[in-house]
């Protein structure tokens, strides 16, 4: 006597399950994608306008939230210049393209993604190693222009190679890093002590 296959072991049942589960998951992903993209538009609450480079940016621990969040403060000009939104976008775009063209992501991480041979750049603008907020932007530009001469090895022997970055590209990279440090990354990196905190 041949026993009939129970439903849970039948090919046609699992075929239907596979199709419905895939379709439902994908549909949900599409809906969430629309929502996420709209919440992360430049100029929204989570991703600041490019002109945020004209402001003081900090990353402050909120005990009630158990995480740090970006805090945008008073005017703090970059390279002594006030940028309109359009000018800021042009400069940040140059920085982003430079970061891609120089393949930074295959040594560093950005928002934690990339390679692990060099430090994360998510909050590089706020790192306490730039000594003081006054010196910071010039130190960053000098470092990018000649990373061998201005090496910051932290006794590791690892040195960034000279990537032949132009002065304008270096300014673009600094602007991009300043803008990126203002993105709300849900508290990543955790427990980060900023240059502002050290100065206090």
């Amino acid at each position, binding site marked *: 006597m041949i026993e009939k296959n129970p439903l849970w072991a*039948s*090919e046609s049942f*699992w075929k239907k*399950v*596979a199709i419905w589960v*895939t379709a439902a*998951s*994908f549909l*949900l992903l599409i809906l*969430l994608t629309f929502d*996420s*993209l709209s*919440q*992360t*538009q*430049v100029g929204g609450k*989570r*991703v600041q306008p490019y002109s945020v480079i004209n402001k003081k940016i900090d990353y402050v621990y909120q005990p009630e939230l158990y995480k740090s969040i970006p805090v945008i403060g008073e005017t703090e000009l970059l390279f002594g210049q006030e940028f309109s939104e359009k000018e800021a976008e042009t400069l*940040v775009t140059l*920085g982003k*393209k*430079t*970061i*891609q*063209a*120089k*393949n*930074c992501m*295959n*040594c560093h*991480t*950005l928002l934690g*993604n990339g*390679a*692990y*041979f060099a*430090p994360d750049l998510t*909050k590089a603008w706020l*790192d306490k*190693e730039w000594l003081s907020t006054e010196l910071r932007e010039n130190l960053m530009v000098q470092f990018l222009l000649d990373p061998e001469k201005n090496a*910051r090895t*932290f*006794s*590791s*022997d*690892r040195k960034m*190679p000279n*990537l*032949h970055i*132009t002065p304008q590209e270096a300014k*673009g990279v600094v602007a991009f890093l300043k803008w990126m440090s203002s*993105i709300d*990354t*849900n508290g*990543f*990196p*955790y*427990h*980060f*002590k900023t240059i502002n905190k050290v100065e206090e």
Partner: protein
Amino acid sequence: MKIKKLWHAANDKLDFFVTWTALDRMNLSEGRKLAVNYFIVAVILFFAQLLFGMIAATQFIFPHFLYSWLDFSVNRMVHINAMIVWMLYGFIGCIYWLLEDESQREIVGLQFGKIAFWVLTVAVTIVVLVYLFIQIGAGNDTTLWFINEGREYIEAPRWADIGIVAVVLTFFYNVVATFSKGKWSGIAGVLTLDLVALAGLYLAGMFYMTNITHEQFWWWWVIHLWVEATWEVLVGVIMAWSLMKLLGVRRKIVTTWLYIEVALMFGSGILGLGHHYFWIGTPEYWLTIGGFFSALEPIPLVAMVVHAVYDSGSHAFKNGNHPALAWVIAHAFGNFFGAGVWGFMHTLPQINLYTHGTQWSASHGHLAFFGAYATINIAFFYLAIQHWRGDVWMSGGTEQAWRWKWALGLLNVGVVGMTIALLIAGYEQSFIERAVEGSTWSGYFAAQNHPSFQSAMIWRWFFGAITVVGLILLIWDLLTIGKHETRKAIVIVSD
């Protein structure tokens, strides 16, 4: 004159090599001749992956090694790109290999397939040469179009992206047209839908965006939905067909399993994408969605282990190609541990906050890519070489069987050793750099300079070298296995 002489000398060497291997292409159908072309390039790129991986691993120990000539960023880029591309070559080869058998007819549009192979191979060669000799460019669109896009895993410049899409579309046409005109099956249906997704998703990563949150959002669509969804289903298809051929498992059983795997894989993997959206600027709800669904991702991988081991046991391991079956079993376990367990260990946001962007990811990446994808490709290389030799006996009892057994052992020990070494480095980084030092640059270097990290990098190098030895042995074995064998393989009939 000198070039002509060199050309002749190279040709003579190649002829000698071909004679030495004594492989007869007459044993292959036209479709399978194309498949082995893909396999050959895959093996060459596999070797390149390990070579550049070793250079990068050396630079972790001796940072001055090749400094300013071949910097870490270049070596690491070639290392991961060679891996992605050799696996894609392997998959395309596997599909061309099984296509005629599964559809019961010759491949439709084979000529296009042959042209696409050469177009892709020339394009890959140019991209690698540009990576090595030009390396970087100015911060403008010309660099992104012609040198590299500087985005991990999909660094290939835009012109190559367009070429890749054209080649994949040709491949897709070959597959769908062949099944449409030949015999359609459950495997054909899953494969077709999976290829649509695989090709379509690549488009998501082809655009420049200044908003890095949006850019990484779409970038993960390509990387995650390839590696943790469509590629997994693709290897499910390849494994389903392999189990029928190797063990004679009934079609109805493998097809039912395949549907279960698709449901579980896409059901967990599509929204599991959310575990990459914890920290890139995207809304907080991804912490819950990504954490929950990615925690489910190991379940289909358990199903695959059960599937492979149960079928092997129920057929008393009676099969016609021992090395291939051994690699299929290695795949089932490697996929479960590498992609499943190692992924699960750091997928929940509560731990990922500390592990994200550390050597944890490298540890997971090494075991997962090897366990899930390298192994199944190697299994197929053995199936292909057996047929290429004229379906000869290929078992664990032959005089030269030590080679495949040692290659299997060395490659697995090498990769597992690297995985453990990187895991130790990752733990140390999570603790010192993240938890104690708060992820500052000085915290990063405090962790990098720590003796635990330094010794882990030496162990990683050592096990990397074992992996290289394993690969050299594997290549030697693939070129020689069954060379002097006259006995025919046992014929496995589906029960």
